[in-house]
């Protein structure tokens, strides 16, 4: 034995690449050999990643929906009681001619009463009145591309016209919605951060158990001259696989949820004459999800292995 020739030893970078490739495949094989435990861990990571990703998708859809609603913002100009129908229609045409106005529609007092009678259900009560209490209205739709501030200025401007009693922009509710969405967005960010810690903890704990199960093997490897780096590598790759596969699981889970929701949402949108369609994470979003999974898996693993491995020494 001692007299036989020294074997070829690959150059350092080649050797390192070879060991990395070997560890990458071996760590995947280790996951494959314990399918149930691996699947459970991957599922937990997947669900944990899917939750903030799903909330993000929900927000994205709500944001898109509110944006489309913003395009239908209307301003109601309630006319003075002494403005007759001809003057009202003339004013309507004048407003329509403005660049920043998409459309305007005159609703006479009689027409307003008719609509109110039909929609409110107070028809009988209205019959008891000796005069029509409703004013004529001009419904104005400003250009949706305008800044909210400019729309506000236009409404103020229109409200100051002598024929107009009151101008009312039906925007308050959408601003409230935006404010709520902003709060929810912050909440989602916080939840995502907490769940990221959870993924790091889950992977770290799984790796910790793996290290404990392989304590004797680690001791033997150290006795045979394995460095901490050599022993650490398969565990880091396990973290990588847990993160990547957890990300893929989250991706599938979200895809399934979106698929299941698509038809009911389409049906509901149809009721409102909308062609609203659910949006997913998008190509870049899916990539970020996978990268987040890999990064968190690696981090959880590195954090645990770094602390545990040093404590295991041959006896």
């Amino acid at each position, binding site marked *: *034995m001692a007299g036989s020739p020294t074997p070829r*030893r690959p150059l350092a970078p080649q050797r390192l690449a070879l060991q990395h490739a070997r560890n990458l495949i071996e760590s995947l094989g280790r996951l494959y050999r314990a399918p149930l435990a691996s699947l459970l861990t991957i599922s937990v990571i997947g669900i944990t990643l899917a939750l903030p990703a799903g909330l993000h998708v929900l927000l994205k859809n709500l944001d898109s929906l509110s944006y489309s609603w913003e395009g239908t913002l209307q301003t109601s100009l309630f006319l003075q009681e002494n403005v007759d129908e001809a003057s009202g229609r003339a004013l309507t045409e004048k407003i329509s001619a403005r660049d920043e106005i998409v459309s305007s529609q005159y609703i006479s007092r009689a027409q307003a009463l008719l609509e109110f009678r039909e929609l409110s259900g107070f028809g009988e009560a209205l019959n008891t009145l000796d005069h029509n209490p409703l004013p004529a209205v001009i419904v104005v739709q400003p250009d949706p591309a305008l800044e909210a501030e400019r729309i506000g200025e236009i409404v103020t401007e229109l409200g100051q016209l002598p024929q107009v009693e009151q101008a009312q922009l039906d925007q308050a509710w959408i601003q409230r919605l935006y404010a709520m969405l902003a709060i929810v967005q912050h909440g989602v960010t916080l939840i995502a951060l907490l769940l990221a810690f959870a993924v790091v903890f889950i992977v770290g704990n799984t790796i910790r158990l793996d290290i404990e199960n392989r304590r004797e093997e680690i001791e033997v490897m150290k*006795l045979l*001259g394995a460095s901490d780096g050599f022993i650490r590598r398969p565990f880091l790759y396990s973290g990588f696989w847990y993160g990547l596969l957890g990300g893929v699981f989250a991706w599938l889970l979200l895809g399934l949820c979106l698929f299941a929701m698509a038809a009911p949402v389409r049906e509901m949108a149809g009721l409102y004459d909308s062609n609203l369609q659910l949006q997913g994470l998008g190509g870049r979003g899916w990539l970020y999800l996978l990268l987040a999974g890999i990064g968190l898996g690696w981090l959880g693993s590195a954090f645990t292995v770094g602390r545990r491995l040093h404590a295991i020494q041959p006896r």
Partner: protein
Amino acid sequence: MNIVEFHDVAKLYPGGQIALEGVEFQLARGEMAFLTGHSGAGKSTLLKLIGLIERPTRGQVIINGKNLSRIGNFGIPAYRQRLGLIFQEYNLLYDRTVFDNVALPLVIRGLRHDDIARRVRAALDTVGLLPHERKLPITLSGGEQQRVGIARAVVGRPHLILADEPTGNLDPGLSAEIMRLFARLNETGTSVLIASHDVSLIEQLPYRRIILDQGRLQSLHH
């Protein structure tokens, strides 16, 4: 030239327990010797000092001309790669085949796959286990498992083989067989230091005996 030199080596464990005291001995390059004494005499501690599993409290341990006190923690893996360690409990990985167990030191060193295969088969052939390369160690007898351990120790072509009670779990017939294997390895020029309390076995063999008693060197029998 000596491969092992102990100069006034002492090892005290926490609590003041003396494991070794004033140990002074040398093992020549290419020599095979037995380290013997009762349980607790300090045999395993002495091997642990050579394997850098423990550090001496006092004195110097020089292996292959290198003072071990100069090897820091980061240098330990590379140092151990040049040793062949054999244990009473075999210390095999039972979820890996015989081949994979023997290949482990070479995998750690990052050798190419074809070199690993060639050298593992040569080592298994030396210990007579080549036909069992695909088996799991658990399917082998105690003597065969110890031979797997020996193949793993020699596959890296160490300067020095350290064996801690290698026949402790084997019957006399298998013990003699393992000792013959060590003798054959020694004939190829490898230095061998074997810790054993099996006096009846050792006395039959023509190698030097280093006797320890309560951590002190008693005598060096030739």
